[in-house]
């Protein structure tokens, strides 16, 4: 591998790692002051859990040549025997695995036992992630064989995290104060800092998924920027029209929605298509978040509205906008081919159903084994004190 490609992949891996604390801050700003540290900790602790399991076995389960199309063998356990190309790829993929688990934490804010989260994160990242990941990121993966295209993880990361969030909160139940009292973000500047790091890191996420510093990386980079911008524009436009006010929380949420939507398509589309994908992602996510009160679960920080909806929209739009003259090998409807429609629809449905079912089983099992929820008193007192015995801010 040439130094330019190595440099780009190392940078990308560092950028994607940064997204997880970025996400922690993004979420952390949105919760109330007595639950802040717990939110930061759920994200932070995903890093050692996923990293250690990755070295021990997840990488091997996901990418080992031996094994079957569903799961790899344990030949690469301990990351043994990886050459430079494989090792740098493993580093980048590790960072994807981390943030996928971390994304789910936004849904369970303010009420989940920290021990239960640790156990959940470990189980999810060892079982659900490699199964979904191998199906799309590994050469002979089953959904890839179906013809599904998922450039940087719209399905593997966002759809799987989004449906898993539903499954988990269905078992966990809603926050005590859900729909009873207003729950305002304690610090939007903190959320803004997180959003900045997410956006910055997403360039590594998408353009790093090209696997080299070449044409596809540049295509993906530009698509990422344009879709993020269009996502913000889409969300703000609709919000402004419907509520009369363009909000900061809306702006950064729209950015994330645009980024999610372009993730599966980034390396395959023109800048103009990226604008459409991002805008549709932002609009759809705003619509979903606005209608969330109709759904019978409490997804505290809108993992579903933004990541599941954005991911589904993006995955389906691959079948519309993919254009092999910009990258990739398949064409979508606008390039005159309907060949992607079925693979994209089917793979989205399969990932959603599969991740939902597995997560529900894990959540149920953990709930009966150790209990997922803190007591009412702990929830009232705040998870920072009850789970971590510390306070986010001290005014003295």
């Amino acid at each position, binding site marked *: 591998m040439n130094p330019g490609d190595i440099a780009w992949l190392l940078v990308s891996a560092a950028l994607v790692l940064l997204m997880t604390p970025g996400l922690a801050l993004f979420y952390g700003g949105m919760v109330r002051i007595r639950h802040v540290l717990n939110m930061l900790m759920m994200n932070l602790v995903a890093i050692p859990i996923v990293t250690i399991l990755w070295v021990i076995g997840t990488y091997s389960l996901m990418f080992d040549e031996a094994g079957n199309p569903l799961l790899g063998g344990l030949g690469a356990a301990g990351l043994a025997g990886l050459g430079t190309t494989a090792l740098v790829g493993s580093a980048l993929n590790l960072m994807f695995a981390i943030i996928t688990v971390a994304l789910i934490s936004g849904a369970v804010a303010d009420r989940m036992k920290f021990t239960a989260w640790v156990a959940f994160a470990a189980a999810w990242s060892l079982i659900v992630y490699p199964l979904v990941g191998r199906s799309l990121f590994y050469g002979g993966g089953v959904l890839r064989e179906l013809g599904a295209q998922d450039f940087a993880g719209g399905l593997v990361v966002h759809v799987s995290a989004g449906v898993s969030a539903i499954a988990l909160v269905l078992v966990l139940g809603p926050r005590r104060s859900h729909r009873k009292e*207003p729950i*305002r*973000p304690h610090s939007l500047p903190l959320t803004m800092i997180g959003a900045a790091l997410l956006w910055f890191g997403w360039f590594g996420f998408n353009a790093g998924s090209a696997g080299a510093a070449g044409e596809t990386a540049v295509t993906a980079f530009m698509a990422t920027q344009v879709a993020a911008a269009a996502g913000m524009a889409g969300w703000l436009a609709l*919000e402004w029209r*419907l*509520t009369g*006010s363009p*909000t900061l*929380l*809306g702006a950064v*949420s729209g950015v994330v929605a645009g980024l999610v939507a372009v993730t599966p398509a980034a390396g395959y589309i023109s800048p103009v298509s990226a604008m459409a994908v991002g805008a549709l992602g932002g609009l759809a996510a*705003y619509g979903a*978040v*606005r209608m969330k*009160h109709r759904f019978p679960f409490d997804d505290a920080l*809108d993992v579903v509205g933004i990541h599941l909806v954005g991911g589904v929209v993006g995955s389906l739009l691959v079948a519309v906008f993919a254009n092999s003259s910009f990258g990739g090998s398949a064409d979508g409807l606008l390039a005159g081919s309907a060949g992607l429609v079925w693979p994209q629809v089917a793979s989205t449905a399969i990932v959603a159903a599969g991740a939902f079912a597995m997560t529900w089983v894990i959540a149920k099992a953990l709930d009966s084994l150790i209990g997922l929820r803190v007591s009412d008193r702990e929830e009232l007192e705040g998870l920072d004190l009850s789970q971590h015995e510390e306070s986010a801010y001290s005014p003295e």
Partner: protein
Amino acid sequence: MKLIVAFLKPFKLDDVKDRLQRLGVTGMSVSEVRGFGRQAGHTEVYRGAEYTVDFVPKIRIEVIASDEITPAIVRAITEAGHTGEIGDGKIIVMPVDEVVRIRTGERGEDAL
């Protein structure tokens, strides 16, 4: 001796302080409170959901004063704190049994 407590619109603090100083008042203590009253709170929007925030930020000032000057202080606050719009706030005058200056141990009006 009286304790005069007033709830004011935050941006009126400077005017009130200036007027009291001109009256010869040499001290006061100020804190932030959230007021609930006739003045409506405002709406906030987060991700499209609207929240009504009932409480309005107000400034609470406390002035210890001799009985003689108290009416003048009340008048000064009424004037300087006045905008004429709902939410201008209230003044209360309360009896005080004793005042002590910690630095010197002086009591009563000497303590002011």
